[in-house]
Structures are given as C-alpha cells and as structure tokens.
C-alpha cells in the first residue's frame, strides 16, 4: 500500500493562489537565473568556457546565458590573473552591473594573486570588488566551478532580498603579510 503526502501547492485546495514568503520567491527566481559576466582574463577562462560546453553544461543551473554586457548580468566570474592595469576595468564593469550582483573569484590568481607575487599583479580581486565565493585551483576544474556556483545559489537562498535592496559591501585589504 502506498501513501501520498500532499505538500506545497495543491490546486484543489488553494485554487490559483500560492502563499509564500516574498523572500523565498525572489530568491528562488534569482537563484535559478544567475547570468554570469565572464571576466576571462587568463588561463582560467578556458576552464570557464569548458564549463559552458555540453560536457559540463552550466545551463543545468540556469547559468548558460553568458552576458558580455554588464547591464544584463548578475554574477561576475573573475577567471584569471588581474593586473593592476586591468583592475580598473574590472571595477568599472562591476560598477556597471545592476543590483543584485555577485562576484565569484575563480582560481588562485583571482583569489590571491596566485603564483604571480609581483609588482604588476593585483593580489586578490577582493581588494577591489566584494567577493562571494572563492574557488581554489590553478585552474579549478569545471566541476569545481559548478560546485562554487551551487554554493553561490545556496548563499542567495539565505539572503534577505526584501530588506537589503542595495548592498554596498566593503572590499578587503591584504591581510597576509610577512610577520
């Protein structure tokens, strides 16, 4: 004998009305249509492209719509080495993106400067833009990128989107200095 449990929306009981929390609905919508802005600056961008291909298929998570215009994108994936000369461009594109927006630092270079400990490389993109998810690896495999994006989805789920419409989040500074 099988038993069924009714939960969620039941059209017989509720007709065409759904009762939920605004936060839940908004976050549900946002979570499943994160359009990435591919900030591909170096070798990591190749793995980012692989994640977009059919083998790894980022479109399973509603993220296949890579937008090369910051106006139409929600999540900047910084994939690659950010030089100081490029840093201003990254920040400007971040500023041009409409709220709500998220940033994923993909790979060692974007997270910390990676192996480029030198005068020309920005030591972590979190110095100029607020980062939500850091992905380790040099380069991270596409699975790692997908895992990072799923964690971003989890993070979006817990956000209070009705209360904080505009989020002015701070950037970090270098904390890891030689003692």
């Amino acid at each position, binding site marked *: 004998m099988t038993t069924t449990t009714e939960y969620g929306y039941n059209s017989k009981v509720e007709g065409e009305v759904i009762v939920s929390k605004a936060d839940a609905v908004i976050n549900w919508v946002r979570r499943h249509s994160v359009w990435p802005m591919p900030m591909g600056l170096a070798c990591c961008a190749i793995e980012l492209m692989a994640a977009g291909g059919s083998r790894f298929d980022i479109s399973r998570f509603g993220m296949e719509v890579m937008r090369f215009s910051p106006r139409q994108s929600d999540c900047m994936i910084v994939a690659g080495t950010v030089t100081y000369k490029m840093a201003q461009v990254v920040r*400007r594109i971040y*500023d041009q993106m409409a709220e709500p927006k998220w940033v994923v630092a993909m790979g060692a270079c974007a997270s910390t400067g990676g192996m480029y400990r030198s005068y020309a490389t920005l*030591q972590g993109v979190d110095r100029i833009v607020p980062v939500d998810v850091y992905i380790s690896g040099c380069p991270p495999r596409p699975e790692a990128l997908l895992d990072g994006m799923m964690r971003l989805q989890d993070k979006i789920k817990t956000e209070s989107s009705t209360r904080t419409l505009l989020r002015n989040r701070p950037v970090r500074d270098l904390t890891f200095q030689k003692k």
Partner: protein
Amino acid sequence: MKTILEAHPYLIERESADWPAFNCPQDRLMDCLQSLQEEHGFDFLADLTAIDHFDAQPRFEVVYQLFSTERHEYLRIATPCGGDPDPVCPSVVPLWKTANWHEREAYDMFGIEFSGHPDLRRILMWDGYPYHPLRKEFPLAGKEVEFPDEGLREATGKTVLPAPMMGGPFHASQTGSMAKREPRADDESWNEARDRADIQDEENLPPRELRDKH
C-alpha cells in the same frame, strides 16, 4: 663574420655562447646597424632588449638580436648606454619598424630614452607609473603607489601594495636528491617549516640556508 669585422673595425668581439656577438660604441651604432641591414643581409630584428649592470659604468647596455632570413644566421650587437638614471640611446625604428614596441618595452622596464622614437610611451605598466621595474634596485614585490585610475582609488580607498613574498622568491634547491627537490621559499624562517621534525636533514633545509652552508 670576417667581412663584417673588416667593414667595421670599431666592433669588438663579445663573449657569447652561441652566435657571434660584438660590442659597438654608441656613436657608430646607427652606421653599423644600417650597413648590417643593407649590405650584410641582416634584414630582421629578432629582439631588442637591455641589460642593467647596476654598479658598472656605463650602467645600461642595449642589445640587438639580428637575423638574416637568407643565410639563417643570428648576430648580436650590444651597445653601452651612458647616463644614470636617464640613459639615452638612438632609436632604430627608421631601420626596423618592429623596434617600435621593443623600444617601448625597454623604456618601460629600464627607463632607457630612445631618441628619435615616434611614440615613446609605456607599453606594459600604466602611464604615469613612477618606476622602471626591471632595474636592479626595484624589488620584485613592487613599491606602494596609487592605483592608476582615480575612480578605482575613490571606490576602494586602496593603493597598489607590494606583493607579500612569503619568504620568496621560490625556487628548487640546486643540491640534494633530485626526487625531493621542489620549489621552496628562499627564506622559510617565518613559517611553520621551523617546527618540522625533519628540518635537520640537508634536503629539507630552505634554499638560502643550504647555500650559506656550502
């Protein structure tokens, strides 16, 4: 090569591991390169770079790597570049157009002023960067300067900081068992390597201490 030396008696042979190389005084440089290009068939400037000798006089040297596409031969010409901190050298853009960007790079990295260059701007670092990073006195980690863009400065309130070197530069030890060599920080005195039990083994010494020991 004999014919070149006969035609240009002021050239002095220079130490080289592969192809012939000559030192050329700077006042004869343009004559020399022009004749090499027109009469000796070195029609291609493969590379142009500079050397910083730091405490030698003259401090800088500009090096031209020439190639003959007919005879498939390389030739290296080096010329001393007086003047510190502002060395000057004649530009060879009239001879080889490819020298344009090479000279911009040498200017960017070493601060060598190429007189007669059509457009001598920085090519790798941003305009207005106050240093020349490949000079010997410039640290690899960099120096603190302002961000290149005013908007970025305002938005973040940050500056370009020296990169934390974490005891680097990193390189593999030149001695010890090959199987155990791996890139290590030169100076590991600041990190947890001190606490490792096997630090006494020679193979596990940081590269700097190993060097001091030998």
